[in-house]
């Protein structure tokens, strides 16, 4: 009976854990070219100690990982927006999305690197 209760509890909790919502991005418009924004994003993530897993200028995409349990991942997408660029960042922890406000520090650092800090 006790084992059955444990099994039930495990199933209930597993059910909670499998709901994986799509990460909500944090977006920012920057008065710089998309290429410059992407390069500075890569440099910033390298300074933070992330390993860049993928980067493509034509796709305007960068993906970086941090090996700390349970595994962090940051993805940035840069799209042209008129004369400027728009960056959209998401982060996950162990495959689960992190709240978008956690990316504010990175975005602020990116603005500083581009000389666009308010």
């Amino acid at each position, binding site marked *: 009976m006790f084992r059955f209760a444990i099994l039930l509890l495990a199933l209930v909790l597993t059910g909670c854990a499998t709901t994986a919502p799509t990460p909500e991005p944090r977006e920012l418009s920057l008065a710089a070219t998309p290429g410059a924004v992407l390069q500075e994003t890569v440099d910033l993530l390298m300074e933070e100690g992330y390993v860049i897993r993928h980067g493509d200028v034509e796709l305007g995409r960068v993906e970086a990982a941090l090996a700390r*349990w349970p595994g962090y991942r940051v993805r940035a997408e840069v799209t042209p927006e008129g004369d400027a660029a728009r960056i959209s960042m998401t982060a996950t922890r162990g495959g689960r999305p*992190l709240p978008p406000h956690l990316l504010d520090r990175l975005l602020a650092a990116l603005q500083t690197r581009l000389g666009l800090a308010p």
Partner: protein
Amino acid sequence: MRSWWWMPCLLVLAGCQTAPTALPSAEPRPAAECRWEGDGLASEEWVRRALTALEQEGFVIRHTETALGLVNAERTRTVPGYGDFYDRERVGVFGGYGVGGGRGGLATGVMIGFGGGSGGIRRDATRLERVSLVADGDWVRVTRDIQVIDWQGDIREARSASDTDFCLSLRNAMATTDSRGGV
């Protein structure tokens, strides 16, 4: 069997894990030696040198993007018997007895045996080392991390390893490397 009780505790705790309050940076931070000035070399030349140097060190190149001056490579190594330390307490005892009768006699027998947990099966883990290098024209930056993945595919260790030794040896290898593949 005696450690069954932590399973529900673990599941409960996994259920209530909270999000961190900040996006983490690598700890320790990349060493100062993992960043150096490009010495006027084009970023494409640094990328070529990095490819040669990393491949000589046994890395497999996973991805490059010359427009960013980016190289991503990884190297795996087997860690023999990594799980044995945890399995050693699983020692079992088995035994049996028998009685046999024949014509004009009776024979009895008892046997007993001890067995270790690993049972002769080697449970090797894999050490995965991932490196990225970015040469943006002014600076060359290197980051590295190391993960140990056990025979069941679970990550046992994960840490950033952008340390002085690795970066210095890579930098020296790149300085003495001809980008056409010679040394």
